[in-house]
């Protein structure tokens, strides 16, 4: 059986790999919760203001409720780069399933189909659909061809522990280089024993074990990052 992963890799026609990480029910529930809280808070304040207009205000308020429920997510998704306020809070984003940004059409479809996902009264269809699909799509997502994904964390320059730069004795692939850099960046958070254990795995590369091995790997990380 293939090992389970949360990352889906998509290759664009230009040969570029995109890594999408579909978001599951927990994050999406809270995003929805925040969105609803925001919308109803806004509606409540609008209602207080409109209440002074009497029955006319009530009518206007109902129009507002309709617009807020149906179009709030559409506007925020299309104009906010796929993120409503709740999704922003939870670091989520809506994309087309091929990784392109979402447009008016798919957004309108996925939000209108909340009617179906909401059946039979408490989003049970949506939840079951998310549980049954590999990419956690509700019916609206399937029909509109969209995905809700976790945002990628921004890339930052690593903080590497001080060490004497050391050139690796062998040429390393990109993946291996980034593993060594990640080790150096995370070594302050690892226990000493575990750091040495991990560095021992690289014995064939460093030619030493224990504390010396750790020092050698840290030195290679410095070298790879540009220290000479």
């Amino acid at each position: 059986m293939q090992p389970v992963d949360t990352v889906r890799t998509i290759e664009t026609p230009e040969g570029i790999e995109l890594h999408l990480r579909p978001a599951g029910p927990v994050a999406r529930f809270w995003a929805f919760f925040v969105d609803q809280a925001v919308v109803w808070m806004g509606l409540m304040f609008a209602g207080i203001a409109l209440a002074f207009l009497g029955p006319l205000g009530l009518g206007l308020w109902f129009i507002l409720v309709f617009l807020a429920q149906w179009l709030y997510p559409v506007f925020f998704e299309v104009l906010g780069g796929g993120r409503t306020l709740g999704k922003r809070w939870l670091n989520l984003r809506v994309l087309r399933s091929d990784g392109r940004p979402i447009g008016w059409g798919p957004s309108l479809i996925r939000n209108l189909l909340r009617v179906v996902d909401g059946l039979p009264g408490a989003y049970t269809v949506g939840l079951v659909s998310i549980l049954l699909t590999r990419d956690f799509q509700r019916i609206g997502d399937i029909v509109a061809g969209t995905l809700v994904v976790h945002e990628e964390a921004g890339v930052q320059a690593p903080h590497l522990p001080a060490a004497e730069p050391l050139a690796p004795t062998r040429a390393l692939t990109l993946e291996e280089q980034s593993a060594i850099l990640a080790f150096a960046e995370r070594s302050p958070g690892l226990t000493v024993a575990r750091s040495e254990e991990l560095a021992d795995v690289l014995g064939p590369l460093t030619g030493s074990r224990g504390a010396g091995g750790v020092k050698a790997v840290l030195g290679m990380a410095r070298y790879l990052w540009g220290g000479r």
Partner: protein
Amino acid sequence: MKPGTMGFIPRTRAAMEAADLGLSLLQAHWRPVARVWGLQLGFLLALLLPFLHQTPLWVLAVLWWLKPWLDRGVLFVLSRAVFGQPASVWDFLGEWRSVHRRGLVAGLLWRRLSPMRSYVLPVSQLEGLRGAGYRRRARVLTRKGGGTGFLLTCSGWAFTLLTAVGFIALVQAMMPAGSRVQVWDGFNNPGPGFQWFLLGVGLLALTLTEPLFVAGGFGLYLNRRTHLEGWDLELAFRRLAARLALVLLLAWAMPLRLAAQAPVQEPTAQVPAPEASDDAPQPTPQTGPQPGPQPEPQPAPRPADGPLRPDEEARQRAQRILEQDPAFKHTKEVRTLSYEPTGREPRWLRSLLDYLFAKEEPAQPSKPQNLDFLKRMWDLLALVGKVVVVGGLLAFVLWLVYRFRHRLGLPLVEAKAWEAPEAVAGLDIRPESLPPDVPEAARNLFLRGEARAALALLYRGALAELVHRRAMEIPASATEGDCLRAAEGHLEEGPAGAFHLLTGTWQRLAYKNEAPTRDAFEALCDAWPAAFGGRP
């Protein structure tokens, strides 16, 4: 554990994504999870029903409380899957002891309502920790991702409740047209039938959502350990070492010396290919309900001819026209299912039909939707608005009064009675902690070579005198400098000088490790009783 045999790809994920990893695991291994879950649930029901079959809701309540036991089955299967071993019902029974040995009682009693239950469950079940070790480990784990663990628990409750509501609504929606059975009314007066129905709905909802909750917590746990122990790094390093070994082997086996720079084999990450579905079907969105062709009655009499009739008469006349004139006649045909017993159907069918289409009350045309509640809600909202506006103004005025109370000449609130601290700058200044004769005790200490203890005793004796007899108010966090400044107002000239000297000597010893000479120390001791010896 060998990284190559792991059932998931370790990465450093954000906590929410880690919860999704758990769900992905559950999706991949739902069959064995379902089997073990079914076994456990069947076992519990067989145990509970003989005692509680009169009160099905109690069965549900007990099952709900025993969820941590059910969770252990789910976690057992998922943990075996993660470490590359399949888990059948027989494996579960075979490992019965190890699954339940640690922490089950705690989990069912005082940890039952823990807000991060599923996140820390592996600590007791898989790591086998208990007591202080468990608490320490759980604290380390929940330092990161604890908030997500809490959100996971909350959303677990929400999903269970919403799913149950959804199932009840589904049953109501499936009632045939014309049936007057109102499922929701059962909550007002839950008969035994309704209680059994609720039990079924509850079991269904738990079965759907509880494994999701456990799997999410397990995902958090795996991710936290990946962060703490660098599982992803180990995997990458092992691949690198294996590739190097291959390179070395080739270099040794071939007569030619290979250039070591050539990467021999690209270790490819096993990522499932995505299904390309760029062209999703795009059905036209449903349009809203069409307004039905409703003839708008226009019964207004023309006011032009003759004097205006009184309102009441006009209304009556309009009413008459509406009722009698066929142009305004409004008939509506409503067809519903009904049921006439023929006497030939079997009894169960008969009772079911009787239940669905209760014969007593004739079908009434549906009443127009009563919108009164909206009006009431609206009035309530207006009231809330008034209260908020008036209350806000009132609060603002009160705040203004409070803010400028000194200008208005109002009495200021008295500060709370000051309490002397027990220690200042780490020195114990309670009078009862001092020896009866402070200078004598200090001299003894000094002669024994403990200059630091001797000076500390003199200094804190002086502080105790100042705080407890001369009412000097200093907080426990005061430094020596603070004490010196504060003492100025509380001491006459002579003692003030002595305190200044004492403070300086103490600071030099404490911070510069510069002990005073014997003579200087004696001078301090001699001055002490006069300056600070207020105590008899």
